[in-house]
């Protein structure tokens, strides 16, 4: 058999998720929203800060979910986009003196462009090749940020310190609480936009590509365009999350955005359930609180705990939090009948 004749039928990289199963019902959404609005009124500042980070990582996981769950492409390089967003916000705030809220759309746009350009070669790659290219991107990013040429702007190894904004209009709330509500509004906005995106014509195109690329292109979907678009949208949202993260942590440095962050985000997506957008917040809670608990037992343990849990998830509940939610729903349904 000559080499070029070899033919491979490829299974879809990600199991198909029906469109309706990607979101929560209206009632459940409102309950979750109410909880997110009321909760910070009753807790300490540090917990408010952690809830802010919960939303920020939730956004980053959501972005990865759109890419993987929506269009079936992988990325192990989300930390790179997160870093670019964080640095864009930090540099604009500290060197240009721009208002923090205005830096976020710019971070989003720059990351969208970066993701779109990175997606150009990536669209020729599928599955493992894409995972490989993004893995290399994530490992290379800290070195790029440390480069001597940009040191004037990026602060080199030292990084940059970012000032935390005060609440505007003399609102009677602390910095942490203001930032929380600010982040919450942006998160809800992006969540609603993402849900609508996946329900739109573009979203259907993403899913067609995810389920069968060749069939999708035969149906008239511009595969190259929609694949890069998915990459760009995902990178853009991650960039906004990165910008918010820089403001919340008040600090950016190259070693904050290593491959470990990319692994965490990937883990958050798998735990939350690939293709189930509300799962992003579950995954985010997981990647914020599990390391805290693990590190309190022993330093350096969090990687092992992450890894073991990831294996447990892919063996026992391959659909992540979505599967748990469905089982819970069915049990509730049975209880009601009795």
């Amino acid at each position: 058999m000559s080499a070029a004749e070899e033919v491979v039928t490829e299974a879809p990289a990600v199991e198909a998720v029906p469109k309706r199963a990607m979101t929560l019902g209206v009632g459940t959404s409102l309950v979750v929203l109410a909880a997110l609005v009321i909760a910070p009124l009753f807790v300490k500042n540090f917990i408010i800060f952690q809830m802010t980070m919960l939303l920020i990582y939730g956004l980053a996981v959501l972005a990865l979910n759109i890419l993987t769950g929506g269009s079936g492409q992988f990325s192990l390089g989300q930390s790179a986009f997160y870093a670019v967003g964080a640095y864009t916000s930090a540099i604009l705030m500290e060197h240009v003196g721009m208002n923090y809220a205005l830096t976020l759309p710019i971070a989003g746009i720059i990351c969208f462009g970066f993701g779109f350009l990175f997606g150009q070669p990536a669209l020729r790659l599928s599955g493992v090749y894409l995972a490989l290219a993004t893995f290399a991107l994530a490992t290379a990013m800290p070195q790029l940020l440390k480069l001597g040429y940009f040191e004037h702007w990026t602060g080199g190894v030292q990084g940059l310190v970012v000032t935390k904004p005060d609440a505007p209009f003399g609102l009677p709330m602390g910095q942490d609480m203001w930032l929380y509500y600010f982040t919450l509004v942006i998160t809800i906005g992006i969540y609603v936009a993402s849900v609508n995106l996946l329900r739109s014509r573009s979203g259907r195109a993403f899913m067609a590509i995810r389920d069968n690329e060749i069939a999708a292109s035969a149906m008239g979907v511009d595969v190259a365009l929609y694949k890069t678009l998915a990459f760009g949208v995902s990178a853009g949202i991650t960039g906004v999350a990165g910008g918010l993260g820089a403001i919340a942590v008040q600090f950016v440095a190259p070693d904050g955005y290593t491959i470990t962050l990319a692994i965490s985000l990937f883990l958050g997506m798998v735990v939350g359930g690939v293709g189930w957008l509300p799962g992003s917040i579950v995954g985010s809670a997981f990647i914020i609180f599990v390391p805290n608990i693990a590190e309190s037992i022993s330093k350096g343990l969090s990687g092992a705990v992450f890894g073991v849990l990831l294996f447990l998830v892919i063996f026992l509940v391959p659909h992540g939090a979505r599967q748990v939610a469905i089982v819970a729903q069915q049990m509730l349904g049975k209880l009601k009948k009795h």
Partner: protein
Amino acid sequence: MELFTNQVLAGIATGAIYACMALAVVMIYQAIDHLNFAQGEMAMFSTFMSWQMMQWGVPYWGAFILTLALSFAGGIIIERLLFKPLAKAPVLTNVAGFIALYAIVNSVAGLIWDFTIKQYPTPFGSSPFLGSQLISTHQAGMIGITLLMLILLFVFFRFTRVGLAMRAAASLPESARLVGINTSWMIALGWGMAAAIGSVAGMMIAPVVFLEPNMMLGVLIYGFAAAVLGGLTSPFGAVMGGFLVGIFENLVGTYIPGVGNELKLPIALALIITVLVVKPAGLFGRPIVKRV
């Protein structure tokens, strides 16, 4: 000119290590069609084991052989326990599995041996090789050990029944099964051999990059670059790719101003992306045609 020769030889020496990593990656890729992102961490763990044995007083070559055997067994155990059940799972699940393995091995090595940088001995010494200033004895040793291993592997795959069975299982699993080859165990054997090859790479590069849990990340990325350049479907290509990438890295670092060690990883990234865009099948790989 002497600088040029010097850098090419140094490139061949590090290239030998990249060739080993690339070969290990390609062996697993051939067997199960997935990239082992944890290959570097497995090699790092093996290297730590050999270091620990030497701390306990085992002589270098004794520790070397023991580590090879342990890594081989470890690779088989990992495949049987963790990746055999995932054989039919989607790509995403497999990638998640490799990432999980990466995190576990890295973190456990840090827990056992902590994150401080350690010296690692070389059995060859670091004096000039054969009185020439071009290459050190350790670099010559690295090249020698790699070549010896490659020859042994070639003989194994070419002239033994098990080697033939492994090649059959990798190229046409269905037909191999029909003629009575236990393809499942051939995959496990591939994992064991990949782990052993990786451990050789780890033990050879450790005197250069020093021993610590993150030591293999850069080596692994260059190993990937080498595998992609040579073609993921070709073990011979992976080895050639390794030497080419090693030479390329050294020459770029020497002759292009401002590109030193601090751009090591971005160069590998650029290399991977360029190859994937220009010639996705690599120099020696075969193109793959897809069907709906």
